[in-house]
């Protein structure tokens, strides 16, 4: 057995990474399709207020963060639908309010900058067995919902107006996606930290987008990319003594740069090949 697996905290960290790597992109693919790639960041900021509230009241921070974030997610969705404020403004208010609330409440709870940092940037090696059980349930909820209702969520994310005209419960599905986003954020905060949560939802999708042709294959590849980079990132952070969240996200960004450049080159080559064939196929007299 590798040395790393002899430590209980590392085993828990790797299981947490696996769960997050699978669950985050399965929600992220709908957020990308809805052009709401940044909403995870807003939710992460709100989760900070939840964590601080937990610290202040002496309650376990993860469940409190879950409740606060789910309520905020539902409120944002309702405001987007019925309010007079634009979606991006609601998101901005969420960003500011979440961070401000978190900072003030952590200070009131007597927390230090170090406490704040563990939530902002992740502290995967501090994952307890109790945390892991909560994460496993949350990941299961997210995966069951995104697979069971994936087609509906995709339909609403791609063409909300058509979904409404054809009689799908658009509001309910949007609310469900908002709640799943909130759950994923809370699930991911130990692994990548609240500031980098969105990366694990969005970048694997951005990578898979370059390589796939269908929604289904994009989703599955994104989940694969998320899982592998999360696990490899945690291992790298153990051996290289780097923060896990940043390491995972840097791997993802590197993968994105490579696949984006690769697919751009392939497209350019295909275009050149097409032009050459066209050139050869055109009789000399007809060439411009």
């Amino acid at each position, binding site marked *: 057995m590798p040395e790393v697996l002899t430590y209980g905290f590392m085993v828990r960290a790797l299981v947490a990474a696996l769960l997050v790597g699978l669950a985050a992109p399965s929600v992220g693919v709908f957020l990308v399709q809805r052009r709401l790639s940044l909403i995870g960041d807003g939710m992460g900021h709100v989760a900070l207020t939840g964590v601080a509230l937990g610290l202040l009241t002496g309650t376990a921070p993860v469940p409190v963060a879950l409740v606060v974030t789910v309520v905020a997610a539902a409120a944002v969705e309702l405001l987007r639908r019925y309010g007079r404020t634009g979606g991006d403004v609601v998101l901005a208010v969420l960003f500011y309010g979440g961070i401000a609330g978190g900072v003030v409440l952590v200070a009131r709870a007597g927390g230090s900058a170090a406490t704040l940092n563990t939530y902002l940037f992740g502290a995967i090696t501090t994952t307890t067995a109790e945390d892991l059980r909560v994460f496993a349930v949350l990941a299961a909820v997210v995966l069951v919902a995104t697979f069971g209702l994936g087609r509906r969520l*995709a339909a609403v994310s791609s063409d909300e107006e058509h979904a409404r005209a054809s009689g799908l419960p658009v509001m309910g599905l949007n609310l469900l996606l908002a709640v799943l986003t909130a759950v994923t954020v809370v699930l991911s905060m130990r692994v990548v930290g609240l500031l980098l949560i969105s990366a694990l939802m969005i970048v694997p999708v951005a990578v898979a987008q370059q390589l796939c042709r269908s929604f289904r294959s994009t989703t599955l590849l994104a989940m694969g990319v998320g899982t592998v980079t999360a696990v490899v990132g945690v291992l790298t952070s153990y051996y290289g003594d780097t923060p896990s969240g940043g390491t995972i996200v840097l791997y993802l960004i590197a993968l994105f740069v490579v696949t984006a450049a690769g697919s751009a080159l392939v497209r350019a080559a295909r275009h050149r090949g097409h032009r050459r064939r066209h050139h050869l196929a055109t009789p000399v007299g007809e060439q411009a």
Partner: protein
Amino acid sequence: MTTAPGGAAPPLLRLQRAGFGYGERVVVRDVDLEVRRGERVAVLGSNGSGKTTLLRGLLGLAARTGGTVEVDGEPAPSRRSRRRTGYVPQAMTVGGGVPTTVREVVSTGRLPLRRPWVPARREDRAAVDAALEAVDMAEHAHEDVTELSGGQQRRVLIARALAAEPDLLVLDEPLAGVDAASALGLARTLAALAARDTTLLVVTHEVGPLADVVDRAVVLQHGRVVHDGPLVPELLGASDEALERLQEESRLRHQHVHHHEHETSPPPGWVSDHREHRPQPTADHPECHHPGTHHPETHRA
């Protein structure tokens, strides 16, 4: 799928003094319209005439400000009416660009008929296959929709609506923004659907190649119906000037109708501003039919 003798069966779509708008703004008012099974109706009008609002109102996407809307005798929009009405929007919405195949897009049209959490049944897959065949896109089923031409994307949208096996197909500007060859191809597809007795309601600012498909025209001007009858030659170009002229003639007819009914020769099938002069559809002739009227059957290929 047949009209009962004597018009006993309710029309597939019936609007009575219906008005639609957004918030406080009423865009379309007092529209009376009946569409029977198997009819192919074009809703014509220039930009700002209210035709898009009418369409959105039928689909429950714009607020009803007055009157009634019924689909097959039941108040609409309801969950049931939405499922019986297939909506084909003007353009493909591709969202954030997650790759999606033609088949995946068409399958979403079937979702309202499927139960949540349950995988697609054999009849769902068969309906999607049939929809792809109907628009001649079966061989592109596994291609990414963003890589298709504009005309092909329209076909995919038509197939998505057909996947739910709707009673009424509502199309928003199906030929706008596609090249002439694609427009002809789309018109042929719609003609094939019409030949299978699909009821069509096509909102368009120009009839163009659809002249062979539609058998009745409803013209909107400033949010009101100014013509409901056969597709007369004047409507074929349906430029803004032509519509202005039609409205002027409609106004003149309204002024002279009592005194000069035989001297003035208005285009057949005109609706005057007086409701009582509106030619009433009959069971035998669902559209208004006048002697000398250019009848669409005569030039349908």
